[in-house]
Structure formats: structure tokens, C-alpha cells
């Protein structure tokens, strides 16, 4: 993995970029979205507040804005509303894991943190086994990606003509041939999946 060559200028540029994106620039939030930046800022400027000041931002105002934002996000919620919303989401979404929900429904996750102490506890209080939720979410994401990978492979294989020839494909595109065999188990299975796909699309 390439190492970032940090400079004071690079750090300031990234801070201003996050500022432009309307992000909460509190130390804890930036740690979450770009942990390396906070580490580099501390190394180069002594602390996060000094880095903010170097970027021309008022660090005290950043703290206040962060607090205001947190309060705003969660003010309309109650613990009952959080649990009710989780139960509704459980019907609509196949994934209740923290990573997915934080992305898809950040206000709900923030409210769960405030009113039920954590997302995990909120999910459990709503009547779900959190371990099971995590496992289900992971499997769901893996399954979706696997299906998509297969579709992409067959879409490309389809371009090799009516009856794709294994030797032709492996000579013209060895990496693709390898991926096909890895995904479908064998060349024959890939071709039969392609036939099935064509039939379904007719």
C-alpha cells in the first residue's frame, strides 16, 4: 500500500476539503472519516485544534458547531421511537448491521447512541440477536456482490459469441478466463450459466 507523504500543506488542504463538504470537523468525527489525517495533523501541528487554526478555522467554533449538529440530529427522537424505527427497518432492509445502517440511516444510529446508549443495545432492545444481525448483514452483502460479480462475468463472456470457445477466451484474456473458472467452478459451469442467462433474458 502506498504511504501518504504528509506535508502541512496537504493536511490543511484536506481539512478545507472536509470543511467544504460540510463535515463535522470535531476531532472524533474526523478520526472516523479520515483517521490518518488526525494523526498527521497531531504530528505536524501538535494537536487537532492547531491544525484547524492553521487552516484558517476557528477551533472553538468548530467544537460548538459539532455539538449543535449532534443535538439537532437527535432532538426529535425518543428511545421508543428508535426501537419502533429499528423494527420497521428490519422489515424493509435486509441488513441491520452498524456499518450499513450508519451509512443508510445515520440519524437513527445517532439517536440509538444517545437514547439507548449504542446501536447494538438498541437492536437487541428491539428484539433482535445482534450477532445474528451482523452475520446476516455480512452474508447479505457478500451474496449481493457475488451475484453481481457473476452477472458482470457473464455479460462479458456473452461477447465471445454464440458458443464461446475456452481456448479462445484463455488465449485472448487469461485473467478473465481465470476469474470465470474461479467464480463458476469450471468453464463448463460458466457456459451453462451463460446459456441460462440468455434464456432468462429472451
Amino acid at each position, binding site marked *: 500500500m502506498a504511504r*501518504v507523504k504528509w506535508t502541512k500543506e496537504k493536511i490543511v488542504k484536506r481539512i478545507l476539503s472536509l470543511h467544504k463538504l460540510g463535515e463535522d470537523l470535531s476531532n472524533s468525527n474526523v478520526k472516523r*472519516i479520515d483517521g*490518518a489525517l488526525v494523526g498527521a495533523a497531531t504530528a505536524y501541528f501538535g494537536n487537532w485544534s492547531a491544525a484547524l487554526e492553521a487552516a484558517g478555522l476557528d477551533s472553538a467554533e468548530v467544537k460548538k458547531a459539532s455539538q449543535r449538529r449532534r443535538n439537532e440530529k437527535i432532538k426529535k427522537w425518543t428511545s421508543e421511537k428508535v426501537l419502533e424505527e429499528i423494527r420497521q427497518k428490519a422489515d424493509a432492509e435486509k441488513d441491520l448491521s452498524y456499518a450499513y445502517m450508519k451509512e443508510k440511516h445515520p440519524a437513527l444510529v445517532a439517536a440509538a447512541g444517545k437514547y439507548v446508549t449504542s446501536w447494538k443495545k438498541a437492536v437487541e432492545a428491539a428484539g433482535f440477536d445482534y450477532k445474528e444481525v451482523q452475520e446476516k448483514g455480512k452474508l447479505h452483502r457478500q451474496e*449481493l456482490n457475488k451475484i453481481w460479480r457473476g452477472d*458482470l462475468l457473464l*455479460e*462479458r463472456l456473452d461477447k465471445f459469441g454464440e458458443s464461446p470457445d475456452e481456448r479462445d477466451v484463455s488465449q485472448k*484474456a487469461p*485473467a478473465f478466463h481465470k476469474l470465470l473458472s474461479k467464480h463458476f467452478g469450471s468453464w463448463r459451469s460458466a457456459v451453462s450459466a451463460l446459456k441460462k442467462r440468455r434464456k432468462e433474458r429472451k
Partner: protein
Amino acid sequence: MRILVVEDLPDIMELFGALLEMDGAVVHKASSYNEALEIADNNEIDIVLTDYKMPGMHGLYLLDMIKHKNPNMPVILMSAYLDNDVAVKARRLGVDYILEKPFEYEELFKAIRKLLRKKWRE
């Protein structure tokens, strides 16, 4: 064409690499935004294809960094769950194309060709 593909799922990255190379692209692969920024700083790149959600960094960060440095660099954003607010923000930052996962390769490749033709005409 030289493409920087930024994706944290190794299987998807490997597949995009193979498909794009079959279509004549030179593919630079990055599995994190930091890695992507370093590659973009040190290589000639024609177009960037990036996932929105990467671990450890804001999804639109890379887009902003790249557009800040090179406003004419086409950037395609991919995402499995992109809400309207994020899409609006991305457009404001100059994203050239947004693809919602799962998409067909043909759509991606058409977008790449269209954006590169536009870039090279300018």
C-alpha cells in the same frame, strides 16, 4: 486509456481490472483513498473510477481532492447506497457520472468512453 480504479472489495477490483484491461485500458488499482491519492499524484491518469464508500475516509473526499488538483479529470462515482443528499453534494463537487451498484459493465464502459471523448476534445 489510463484508469485509476478505487475499490476496497478485492474481488470486484480484480474483476474491473480484468474487464477494463480486456478493453485496452491500463489499470491502476487502489484499495484505499490514501493509496489512490498517492497514485494520482505520481502517475498519468486519464479517468478515475471510485467507490463512494471506503473504510476510514469520507466518500466524497477523493472526488474533491482530485477535482481540486485537476478540474478536468473525469471522475465516476460508484455506490451501493447513495442517497439524494450525497448525490447532490457529489454533483456540486463536479462528479462526472454516478453509477449505482449493481450496474452493467456496458454502462460503465459507455460512460468511460463518453467522458474521455469529451476530455480529449477539449
